[in-house]
């Protein structure tokens, strides 16, 4: 019978999710998240994670098995989630029989207690099995619901979970608006959402969701039927609101979220710079952090009185152009030896360049110039003229905003210029581009130089914001993060970089509380995002076209005969 997919899928998926559930437990996630309640006293994040695994197992099994009758779906769902829950129980029994803690750090008594609901081995195990079956039945019921109803319910549930998880952030942000304090007091208890709070959010969002899904098309129709003049008015109006909102954002969001936005801005500047090198010109650069470091150190060394140099520029704004220019120069300098290298040779040389810059800044040899391991401290604030002020994340926001707008403007203009088209030609095929009369040397060096100058600008602002820079801050991971965000966003696409920066810098910041699992989740998210959307979140039109071809080719993937070499050079 195992060959029959109807029967073997639930078992296979159950086994797989069982392994996953056990691994989640051994990773320590259930324990760590167990301390955080989504709904105070009702369900913790840790248990929710486990239940979600069971639910997903059942849901997938039902979908894959193709069962349609409710009885069958319930059977299939319950079977696979039951198998998954048996794995969890097996872990507990194994753990109480032998010491798993020698190998697995998280296989401890508190974990077993959590997994058995503190009810002892036998009762707890039975409860866990029941949870497994219930999740399977729930999944079957979910499948049985009409698609639309499912959608209505799903969004509010996700929101309840999100608001529960982000409790800290929400309450801290709302502290800025004292008049909203009663709202948070109503929504939250000390650990998690309150029960009435959770219900209110659910009902409210259900209603909003319903109206949104039902009435959206009506609103769109009305907008479309408006005369062009009023349509323009609506558009300008919304742009106006957007601009005002952008300017007001730090005041609304408060200190911490402004800090997060600053980090997004910082990576956005770097992302736009690297986007020119990698996205436009197709030159893989794994050492972009070098230019960031050079910009930061140039400004730092020029404005810090601590190193005792002869030349000290007290004013950040005067040092800024030097930072940008030195970074651009370094970009061109790096560009020269790598002109003839392609692809991955380029990648490793740029990676090496990034490391060389960091090691030189760190070295004892150059300590008199850069401060060595103790870094460069007391870097000037970006005060304008005699106007001195305390620089907070909120004020730096405007500096980042201005920088980003400038850089986005330049990027957009360059992209559609002759130079931008030359870059794209080089990216598609170097030899053809050269044959068409494009000066490869100038084109590539300009890409390196311009990309580097944006990195230098980012570094200059960063140095001033931290007031102190250390060589350790300029490590390889920054290059990797910047590269990831432009590819996640959609390579070569400017809106893509913005979305990528928000997704890869902003979101992990919000999860700072779960520091232990940040990189784990970050890594998984990178893989999943690329598998689901290889073209990026906001792909460039040209790229999307290429990806379309790739998708079409992928269809007959069962056969080994696939006639295409990997991508472009």
């Amino acid at each position, binding site marked *: 019978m195992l060959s029959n997919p109807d029967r073997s899928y639930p078992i296979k998926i159950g086994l797989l999710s069982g392994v996953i559930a056990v691994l989640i437990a051994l990773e320590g996630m259930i324990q760590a998240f167990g301390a955080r309640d989504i709904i105070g006293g009702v369900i913790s994040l840790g248990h929710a994670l486990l239940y979600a695994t069971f639910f997903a197992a059942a849901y997938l099994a039902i979908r894959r098995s193709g069962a349609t009758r409710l009885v069958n779906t319930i059977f299939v769902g319950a079977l696979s989630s039951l198998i998954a829950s048996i794995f969890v129980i097996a872990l507990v029994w194994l753990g109480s029989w032998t010491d798993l803690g020698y190998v697995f750090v998280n296989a*401890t008594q508190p974990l077993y207690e959590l997994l058995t609901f503190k009810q002892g081995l036998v009762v707890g195990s039975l409860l866990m099995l029941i949870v497994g079956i219930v999740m399977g039945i729930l999944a079957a019921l979910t499948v049985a619901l009409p698609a639309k109803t499912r959608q209505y319910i799903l969004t509010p549930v996700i929101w309840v979970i999100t608001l529960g998880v982000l409790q*800290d952030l929400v309450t*801290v*942000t709302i*502290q800025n608006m004292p008049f909203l304090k009663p709202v948070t007091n109503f929504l939250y208890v*000390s650990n998690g959402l309150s029960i009435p709070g959770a219900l209110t959010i659910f009902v409210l969002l259900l209603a909003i969701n319903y109206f949104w899904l039902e009435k959206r098309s009506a609103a769109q129709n009305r907008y479309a039927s408006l005369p062009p003049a009023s349509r323009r008015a609506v558009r300008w109006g919304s742009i106006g609101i957007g601009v005002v909102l952008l300017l007001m954002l730090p005041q609304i969001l*408060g*200190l*911490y*979220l402004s*800090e*997060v936005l600053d*980090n997004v801005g910082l990576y956005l500047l770097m992302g736009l710079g690297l986007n020119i090198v990698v996205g436009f010109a197709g030159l893989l650069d794994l050492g972009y952090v070098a230019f960031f470091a050079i910009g930061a150190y140039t400004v730092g060394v020029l404005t810090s009185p601590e190193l005792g140099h002869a030349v000290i520029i007290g004013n950040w704004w005067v040092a800024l152009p030097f930072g940008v220019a030195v970074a651009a120069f370094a970009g061109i300098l790096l560009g020269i030896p790598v002109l003839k290298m392609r692809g991955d040779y380029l990648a490793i040389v740029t990676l090496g360049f990034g490391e060389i810059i960091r*090691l030189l800044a*760190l*070295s*004892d040899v150059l300590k008199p110039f850069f401060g*060595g*391991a*103790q*870094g460069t*401290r*007391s870097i000037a604030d970006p005060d304008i003229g005699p106007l001195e002020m*305390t620089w*907070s*994340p909120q004020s730096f926001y405007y500096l980042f905003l201005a920088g980003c707008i400038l850089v986005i403007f330049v990027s957009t203009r360059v992209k559609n210029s002759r130079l931008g088209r030359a870059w794209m030609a080089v990216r598609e095929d170097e030899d053809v581009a050269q044959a068409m009369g494009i000066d490869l040397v100038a084109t590539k060096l300009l890409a390196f130089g311009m990309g580097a100058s944006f990195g230098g600008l980012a570094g200059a602002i*960063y140095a001033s*914001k*931290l*007031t*102190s*820079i*250390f*060589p*350790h*801050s300029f490590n390889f991971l920054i290059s990797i993060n910047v590269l990831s965000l432009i590819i996640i966003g959609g390579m070569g696409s400017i809106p893509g970089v913005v979305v990528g920066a928000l997704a890869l810098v902003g979101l992990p*910041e919000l999860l*700072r*509380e779960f*520091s*232990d699992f*940040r*990189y784990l989740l970050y890594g998984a998210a990178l893989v999943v995002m690329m598998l689901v959307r290889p073209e990026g979140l906001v792909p460039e039109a040209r790229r999307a076209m290429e990806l379309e071809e790739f998708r079409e080719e992928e269809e007959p993937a069962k056969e080994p005969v696939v006639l295409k070499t990997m991508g472009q050079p």
Partner: protein
Amino acid sequence: MKARFLFVAMLAVAIGLVVSACGPSTPPFQCKDKLGCVDIAPNDSVHIAYAFVTSGENSTLGLDTKYGAEIAVDDKGGKVLGHAVKFDGQDSGCNAEGGQTAATKIAADKTIVAVIGTNCSSEAVPGAPIIANAGLTMISPSNTAPYLTDPAKRAPGYFRTAHNDKVQGAAAAEFVFKQLKYTNVATIHDGGPYTEALANVFADSFRKLGGKAVVEAVNVGDKDMKPVLTRVAAGKPELIYFPVFIAEGGFICAQMRDVPGLEKTTMMGADGIFSPDFLKACGKNVVGMYFSSPDFSAFAGGYQALVDKYLKKYNQKSTLAPFHAHAYDAMNMFLTALENPAVTVKDADGTLHVQKQALRDVIAATKGFKGVTGNLTCDPTGDCADPKIAVYQVNADNFSSLTMPKNPIWKQGQ
């Protein structure tokens, strides 16, 4: 009808009297503090935050201090002035930007009354001013960089229970020169701010005493230490001082005897590797090695009890690093200060009002505080540690039982 009215009126007056008698006989609290107050409602907890490294390679340091502070809360029964203590915080990542972000997130939360952190000195450079601007007081259990308490640059409200690098480096040099009577030594750092400062202070102090000292360096993450040791061997040093962390220290110690010329050279480390994990990482070469570290034997009687509770609660011998006791003391300094009526005003209904400037002043005025790391007295620059540095030597028993020696063989100033 009239009688009834009279009755109601009398009742009203009576109730009014009772209410006024029970009500605020003192005027309601008004915050006059320069930096403002944190109000804690009767059912809310007293919120103390940490900024520690809880992820990545240096998380041992962060967890050690976090556990130490948590035990201090437990020892108080989890409560201060009848309110539960909420101790949570932010990962500061052991780098400047992590320190800044963590500090900003703490500064944004207006329920926080005090901060314990940071772990790494590079975090405190941008982090401490942010905490200071928010009017909070911060005690670091493990920042050792001298410049943090440099009067010209210190952020107001910044204190530390960890000893300044200047103290340890000088003490180690004194031991080597005066006790061991060596004149030719080498020191190796790993490019981290802590180890670089300590190695240089050691070398400078040693030269001042009249000896010869060479400073060499490796990088964090290096594995093969034989090349650098071969270089060192060419100078024929009598002792090598490597104040680095467990990984790099383990590589240096384990590979030392494989390098010709260093078969007999004395080894010495600092508090960063004063841990059973290091004994494991090094292997049997560690027998006979010296360590400069805080003098645990001079710690008040509570220290051993603290370690026992630590091991019992967390069952993690391997996170036991040198700074849990400093974190324990830092937390106790806060808890004691918060109980001081000059800092916290308690209303009849249990509401607390913590006055921020007053808290800072009380911490700054700490004198002879009986902590487990000694008698803490804060000097005007924010250094509160009672810096008793001692030197320990690991013997074969320590190695076989994987425990650090309890009694120092040398104490500073003796």
